[in-house]
């Protein structure tokens, strides 16, 4: 008996009537786009087709101490873009483990704070070029999941990107070398083997010495 089999009855029951709609799967889709912007709206609403990301963070995971390159596109030409950085702790949001909250209900991000003489800003602005594009480098000073939200102050265009900042360790992708895990047993094995070998040589020498002495006595 499987849950799927049992609950199947529901699906069977419903699917008797479901089949027709499945046949209708290919109904014409929502009239693609050409939404009429209302008078006074700053930007026409986007059509229903999702597009490629407008804020790119490279790379998506870094080790503390490295920096990330943010590239924004699709903003207004020569526009001021405000970037807000929010930090979520890496180990948080485990189910059943509620985040710490302030009295007004807002969540407190509890991130491990690393030593840094000048903490990286949590809010800053950048200027786009004539194509509505900007790039900016950001060096996080905390470990955690950093979400960058860029808002065009005139266009209202909003885009986000999330970067994972891990504790400073040998980075798996810095130089393509992976960290070696487990203990290095080579040296202890060599020393031990050498000692055993030396012991055996000494013992054999002792035997030979005794035997020769015995012959001498005889």
């Amino acid at each position, binding site marked *: 008996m499987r849950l799927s089999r049992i609950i199947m009855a529901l699906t069977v029951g419903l699917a008797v009537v479901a089949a027709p709609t499945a046949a*209708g799967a290919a109904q014409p889709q929502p009239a693609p786009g050409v939404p009429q912007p209302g008078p006074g709206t700053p930007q026409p609403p*986007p059509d229903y087709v999702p597009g490629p990301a407008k804020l790119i963070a490279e790379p998506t995971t870094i080790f503390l101490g490295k920096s990330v390159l943010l590239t924004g596109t699709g903003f207004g030409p020569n526009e001021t873009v405000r970037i807000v950085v929010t930090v979520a702790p890496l180990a948080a949001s485990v189910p059943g483990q509620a985040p710490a909250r302030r009295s007004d209900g807002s969540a407190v991000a509890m991130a491990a704070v690393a030593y840094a003489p000048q903490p990286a800003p949590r809010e800053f602005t950048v200027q786009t070029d004539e194509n509505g594009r900007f790039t900016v480098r950001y060096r996080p000073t905390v470990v955690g999941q950093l979400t960058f939200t860029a808002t065009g102050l005139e266009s209202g265009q909003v885009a986000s990107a999330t970067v994972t900042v891990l504790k400073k360790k040998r980075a798996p992708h810095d130089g393509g070398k992976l960290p070696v895990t487990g203990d290095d047993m080579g040296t202890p094995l060599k020393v031990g083997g050498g000692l055993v070998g030396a012991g055996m040589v000494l013992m054999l020498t002792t035997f030979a010495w005794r035997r020769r002495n015995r012959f001498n006595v005889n």
Partner: protein
Amino acid sequence: MSRRGRRRSRRRTRARIRRALLAGLVAGALLVAGAGWVGFRGWQARAHLLNAAGLARELSAQVVGGDFDRAQRTLAALQEQAGAARDATGDAGWWLGQRTPYAGDDLGAVRQIAVAIDDLARRAFPTLLRTDLATLLPTQGRLDVARLRAVSAELTAADAAVRQTRASLDAVPTENLVDQIRTALTDLRVQIDRLVGLTGAADKGAKVLPPLLGADGPRTYLLVSQNLAELRATGGMFGAYAVIRAENGRVRMEKQGTSAQIGRLKRPLSVDPEVRALWADLPGTYPADVNLTPHFPTAAKLYRDMYRRHAGGTVDGVLAVDPVVLSYLLQATGPVRVPGGTTLTGDRVVRTLLSDAYQKLDGGGQDAFFAASAAAVFDAFLTKNVNHRALLSAFDRSITERRILFWSARPEEQQTLGDSRLAGALPDKESAPSVGVYLNDGSGAKLGYYLRQSATLTVGNCVEDGRRELRLRFTLHSAAPKSGLSESVLGLGKAGDPYTARTLVSVYTPPGGAVLATRLDGQPTPVGSGVERRRQVVLANVEVRPGATRTLEVDLLTGRNSVGTPELRLTPTATPWTTQVVTATSCNQ
């Protein structure tokens, strides 16, 4: 001492020795006989238990194969063997043996194993075997709710019996046991845990089903069909919908409509902040975009709210199906003739609905064809004599492939569905790490039908914090022709060239994981990024020309202290995926 006295004393000593020897001999003989008896009974019990294990395997195969007559006979034999094993370990000799040092633990464990198997054979298996799967299927569009409730009571009893057996087996200590017995005990525990999972699920399912089918008052649901020609994370765009009403086991369709009729919401619905960061307001604005997220409950809830804004009615849940489900069902019913000449068959229906209709008919013609097909299939289900077993396996396959998804607006019912495939939820914690590869069409076209996709997940090195490296290799091939497609298929052509399919590929790490690098055809590629349900998400734009293949490689890290073989979670598509998981030994070895 006189000589006589000495002789008497010697004789007395000898007699004492003789008596002691005799007593020793008798005691020794009794001990050997006792041990021999326990050993003999143990050997008998072992033979009975081995027979029982073989019969249990046979029984499970017969139940799955639907051979109920033979299964009944196998069950009788199983009960006989389990009873004999219980008897063999239940006599006074065995009882004494359990109290001896060293061997006592082992004998006690064997006794518990025999009792557990006997209990299952007498109290749980007969109920499970009696449960007639046909009870779960409607006849003439109606499901017998009263009968289902009766089955539910029996399942509850069986579930309780299995749980009780597990509890008594859990109390048996495994330390100091002989290897063979310990292995047998551990194996049995694993099997019983599985059985508890099944009986628990069956019990819950049978309890939740009657209210879902309107036994406690009428229910209405939105039945949506996912259009696999225009991909979305859970399958395809929600194209058409029907409102269905369930009352006392009887299900009927009330009205039909399309997402296009709901249209764009002027005031977008509020969207979960994580989903909004990835897709902006699209999921709360367009019914076609509610399932840009792979988490079906989110999509279903948004669609329900959109329908409420549009039509004013509040439904109790959302059920999603796709044309591939229809193809499996048609294999059970046989071909269905649509007035106007077309015949829908199991092996061609996906092509008929997702390609031919767009290619050969104009907008009005498509509507008429879909409506006629719907009516014909509906009619066939009600009038044709459908093989129950074939129908059940069609549904089983559809649910396994995540092509039938259900969400209930009632939290307690939704909780019952839990992490089952039917719920379509993206879990935020899991026993084995899973990597999600979800596809969303970015061309605004119906080219999804022509896409062929494959994914290979390779387990890599162990790194700090118990994390593990994973490498995903995803390829997307377009089998679309270079010319000759209709305007309906080519749609908006957002990739520039209308024959180029633009697919936004979202890769989800396991919970707590991270994406290290992303390459398209070997070159680093810019990706969007975000987080959903504790998983880091990257969003790559993959554009494929007709006949071409693109390869996306993603290097990932699992969450901390990850164990278990990783698995893939994928968007169900019109053409099945080719997948492979290359495993490696555990980090602890």
